[in-house]
């Protein structure tokens, strides 16, 4: 359903993505792992064009774009079918939890207030935040902020969910509540791409693991292939250092 080919991107003189090939099938839950700074976040942001690759192509169902010739309408079409959950939450600070979830429905999807509210309340219930709906972000914990971000993403009914290290900025005791919600979302069948350092979690929820290293996809396979018998020496090394730190 989603295929990226030969993606390249550089910031100034440093080449971050060196020709990434990456694809996802409908219903897949794909986790992207890899050392810090290898371009995992960057890859995810290429999909919805929050960063601008210099070359490569994207195929998203019927939508097609060559990154060398970006096109506003195509970018918008992709954005309308994806939703992203950010490492830093990025909830709108001037809006309550409920408004955060409703606003895209009203502003972008042009739904009525009533319809937007109904959907938003449903999603907030799903992430367990109904009681906090009228609070502003400044009054919430990291876990609650991230669950707001997840509810906002779910409410637009995306075809693909993009999670960028959703628990990396959380205090350890708050990680569990967010992982529980993500697990619930991915097991509902929505196609998901998850960048994470939570190896055990990735292994549990994913049907495919992608290992990125030095700006390329260095290895990919099923969770058991990747975690139990890593063929790639860099992957084996990465996993052993990750397990040590966890």
């Amino acid at each position: 359903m989603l295929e990226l080919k030969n993606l390249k991107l550089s910031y100034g003189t440093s080449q971050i993505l060196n020709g990434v090939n990456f694809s996802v099938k409908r219903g897949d839950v794909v986790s992207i792992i890899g050392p810090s700074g290898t371009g995992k976040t960057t890859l995810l942001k290429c999909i919805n064009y929050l960063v601008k690759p210099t070359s490569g192509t994207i195929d998203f169902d019927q939508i097609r774009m060559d990154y060398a010739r970006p096109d506003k309408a195509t970018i918008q079409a992709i954005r309308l079918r994806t939703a992203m959950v950010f490492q830093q939450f990025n909830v709108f600070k001037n809006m309550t939890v409920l408004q955060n979830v409703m606003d895209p429905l009203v502003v972008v999807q042009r739904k009525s207030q009533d319809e937007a509210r109904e959907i938003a309340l449903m999603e907030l219930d799903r992430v367990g935040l109904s009681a906090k709906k009228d609070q502003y972000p400044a009054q919430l914990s990291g876990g609650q902020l991230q669950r707001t971000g997840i509810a906002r993403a779910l409410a637009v009914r995306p075809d693909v969910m993009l999670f960028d290290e959703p628990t990396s900025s959380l205090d350890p005791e708050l990680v569990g509540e967010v992982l529980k919600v993500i697990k619930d979302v991915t097991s509902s069948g929505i196609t998901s791409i998850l960048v994470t350092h939570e190896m055990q979690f990735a292994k549990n929820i994913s049907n495919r693991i992608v290992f990125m290293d030095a700006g390329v996809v260095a290895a990919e396979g099923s969770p058991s292939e990747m975690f139990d018998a890593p063929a790639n020496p860099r992957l084996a090394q990465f996993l052993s250092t990750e397990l040590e730190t966890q």
Partner: protein
Amino acid sequence: MFNFGILLPDLLSILTVVPRTIAMAVTIFVFATILGSVFTLIEHRRIPVLRELVIAYKVFFKGVPMVIAIFLAYFGLPPAFEFIASLVGLEINGYATPSWVLLIIALVGCLAAFQAEVIKGALNSFDTGQADAAHSLGYTNIQMSRRILLPQIVVAAIPDLATSLMVTMKALSLGFAISVVDIFAQAQLTAALNYYYLEAFVVAVVVYMTISYTITRGADMLERSLRVW
């Protein structure tokens, strides 16, 4: 001896120019803020050529003392107006331009450079992650600015904007150099008649402080009512 009896007449005399001073300060403030916003937008969007012009403009007006800018306007603008009018075949008397108009133009020119920095500061306080989130959900730049960016940066800018409104009001006292009468100039003129300079300036200080206190309190209340989060 300090003459307490003269304070009330002085106050009444100075109060007659307060509305005019405030009106000029607000006019300058509004135009300088609009111009400063345009400058910041040009810089932020990195519009070529215009961006370099804005930077040069800011260097000039931040560096030149306001009183010199006022004299430049006073002596330079009337012939400039005549020249521009002659280009379209009109004959006007540029020297008939009232001094207060020239003062307003000069101060708008100076303060726009400072307002641009105030607005830039507020813009930089906005964390771009929220813009990323909005764009990822399909917001256009305009929708994102209206719903998320502006509500936050306007509130962030209020304290600095209140300060620059007071700076503007004080800058008007330089208008004395080209005989525009504000609070300070009126104090000066009142004292010139009776030689009670100290008394007149004490009254002027009280008037300035009252205005300043009112602006500060007003800005605080505005900020608190807008910062719902």
